[in-house]
């Protein structure tokens, strides 16, 4: 894979800053968005409040104790969304490869950018400047060659930070990075890591892929890779659903064909319910079976027409069921999935016009 240039932009104390921006009385004062002095949880805290040790996700009761003069304001998500859109508009001047993580965070892939600039650092600075000049808000930026490191970098010298992790610095940075600060490591995982003697990137690298998968399941591979500075995930500019799936694990393994058909049909029914609500239509139906020895098989059928009736899903489902029958081993899980969604734009039929 060629070297990419990824920027992670993180707005500093976003909700609180927007409140201070809209209401001059709040400027320079400790402000907490969400909750009140008695109850609730703080969604965001201004930097003035953070000095007192007030943090987001902290119970507001504790926060009020830490900082008695703390001003609680009600969140206005509509307004944050508005500002967030304005920020995205700024991003879009530089690239269309934008993956929003939340209202105040986004990944940008600027490997190929609209202003034809080689320096991702310069672009990051430029975005920070635009946000400061046009919206009067402060952002921190992290620049690196993958999403994980870019995210870690933006956290490095907040607020108003701009931190770059170059390819050759990646490993060194990870080595010393405390495990609880790793993107994707939550409280529970961090605890588990500590129990295993993993405290930073360097110690994480001591463990084999198999060991990590054994202990952390699917995430094991992710941890194995990021410990080596590898993160090949793309910046997903459109976070679209690619499939809808319903699956069920049974308390008792199923080996009987009749029972299998019955359970499979129930799952198909649930899938149809979810699919209907989804509003897009797919062409591919997929069945997944997990046997009692944990091996699994999948079978799929792609139709010429999209599934738009329950009947068509059921018919296709039946064909897939027959493909896996008779069961070779008892099964513990059945799943169905619809994928192959059409893009909205492709659906528009156009009336042709005479060429006068």
């Amino acid at each position: 894979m060629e070297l990419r240039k990824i920027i992670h932009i993180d707005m500093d104390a976003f909700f609180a800053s927007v409140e201070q921006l809209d209401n001059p009385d709040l400027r320079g004062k400790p402000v907490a968005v969400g909750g009140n002095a008695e109850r609730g949880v703080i969604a965001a805290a201004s930097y003035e409040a953070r000095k007192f040790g007030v943090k987001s996700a902290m119970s507001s009761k504790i926060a009020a104790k830490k900082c008695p003069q703390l001003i609680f304001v009600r969140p206005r998500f509509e307004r944050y969304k508005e500002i967030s859109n304005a920020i995205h508009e700024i991003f879009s001047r530089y690239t269309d490869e934008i993956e929003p993580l939340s209202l105040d965070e986004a990944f940008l892939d600027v490997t190929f950018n609209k202003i034809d600039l080689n320096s991702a650092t310069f672009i990051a600075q430029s975005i920070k400047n635009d946000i400061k000049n046009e919206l009067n808000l402060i952002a921190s930026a992290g620049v690196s060659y993958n999403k994980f490191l870019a995210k870690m970098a933006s956290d490095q010298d907040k607020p108003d930070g701009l931190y770059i992790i170059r390819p050759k610095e990646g490993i060194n940075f990870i080595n010393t990075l405390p495990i609880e600060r790793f993107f994707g490591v939550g409280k529970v995982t961090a605890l588990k890591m500590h129990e295993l003697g993993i405290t930073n990137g360097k110690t994480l690298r001591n463990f084999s892929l198999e060991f990590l998968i054994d202990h952390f399941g699917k995430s094991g591979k992710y941890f194995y890779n990021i410990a080596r500075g590898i993160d090949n995930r793309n910046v997903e500019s459109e976070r679209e659903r690619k499939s809808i799936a319903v699956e069920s694990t049974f308390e008792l393994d199923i080996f009987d064909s009749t029972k299998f058909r019955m359970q499979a049909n129930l799952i198909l029914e649930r899938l149809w319910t979810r699919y209907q609500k989804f509003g897009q239509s797919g062409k591919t139906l997929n069945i997944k079976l997990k046997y009692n020895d944990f091996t699994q098989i999948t079978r799929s059928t792609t139709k010429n027409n999209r599934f738009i009736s329950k009947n068509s899903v059921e018919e296709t489902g039946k064909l897939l069921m027959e493909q896996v029958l008779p069961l070779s081993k008892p099964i513990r899980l059945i799943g169905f999935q619809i994928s192959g969604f059409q893009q909205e734009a492709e659906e528009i039929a156009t009336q042709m016009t005479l060429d006068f």
Partner: protein
Amino acid sequence: MNFIVSSTTLLRHLQSISGVLSTSNTLPILDNFLFDIVDGELTISASDLETTMRTKLEVEANESGKIAIPAKILLDILKNLPDQPCTFLVDRSNFGIEISYDNGKSKMVGYNGDDFPKAPMIENSDKIRVSGDIISKAISKTLFATGNDDLRPVMSGVFCQFSPAEIIFVATDAHKLVRYKRTDSQATGSSSFILPKKPLNMLKSNLRGDEEVLIEYSDSSAVFTFNDLVLMCRLIDGKYPNYEAVIPKENPNVLTVDRLQFLGSIKRVSIFSNKTTHQIKLKIAGSELSLSAEDLDFNNEANERLTCSYDGVDMEIGFNSRFLMEMLNNIDTPEIKIQMSEPSRAGLLVPATSDNENEDILMLVMPVMLNR
């Protein structure tokens, strides 16, 4: 001034011209019928400035004179009167009108008849005489295909071409097109102009078929005289698109199908089509025509099959079902032909047989493409 007239006779004459009345007149007097009596002959006019229509009838009158009578009230009272003589008393000092009938009388106030806008006179006009039957049919076959686009005013009317050899009426809205030709018209002159919708509708509803229509025209207006009616209208100014150029010449794939069966299928299947595009798909393979429609927004879909005779390569083509229905409704033969070249090119709809060798009708419809 006063006059006596039969209520039903008067109503019939008023109704034949009342279609000219506009609901959004700028001049209040245009909401009136102009009554003009000269020597016992009553001429009634209705106008919207663009189109003016006149009808004549004999009345018993004591003197000559003019008065504008409110159209809606007059129509409403006459509709509700059984046939009987009505006496109109007109006070020309205050334009009051009193109508006396068996049960009583009613009063209303009109306008000075001299203030009613005059229809433009045509000078040095050319004349054509054509059979009313042919004009009537030519209008009814083409009128539905006219457009409504304010930006292309020429397409809001029907392009009428007259010559001793043939008359051709053409209408199009750029999605569909109809060309109606007659070789038995024996028009007594040659000309072409674009007639707006309103006069076309008035002609269509008033032509009986057995009359001869005298058409007088200039560059900007035309006058149609037939029966006891005169219709004067402004012509649409502009150049009609070169329609012959868009009619495809090579259409090797020919579908022949029963018109009413096909129409019935389209009516049913189109209920399930997308509400914006009204698209239905025709899939033709061998001697089977399948029609399908779907509306993804509502998970609606429908499929039907018809037997047909087909000469050509297998084809899948989408059309606006409304267009197809309008066209099929305007063809009279039991079977129709659709001639096609490609799913992205126009389809031609023509009668499979002809019971009138002097008539040539061609309908063209552009497909609806699915961007896939």
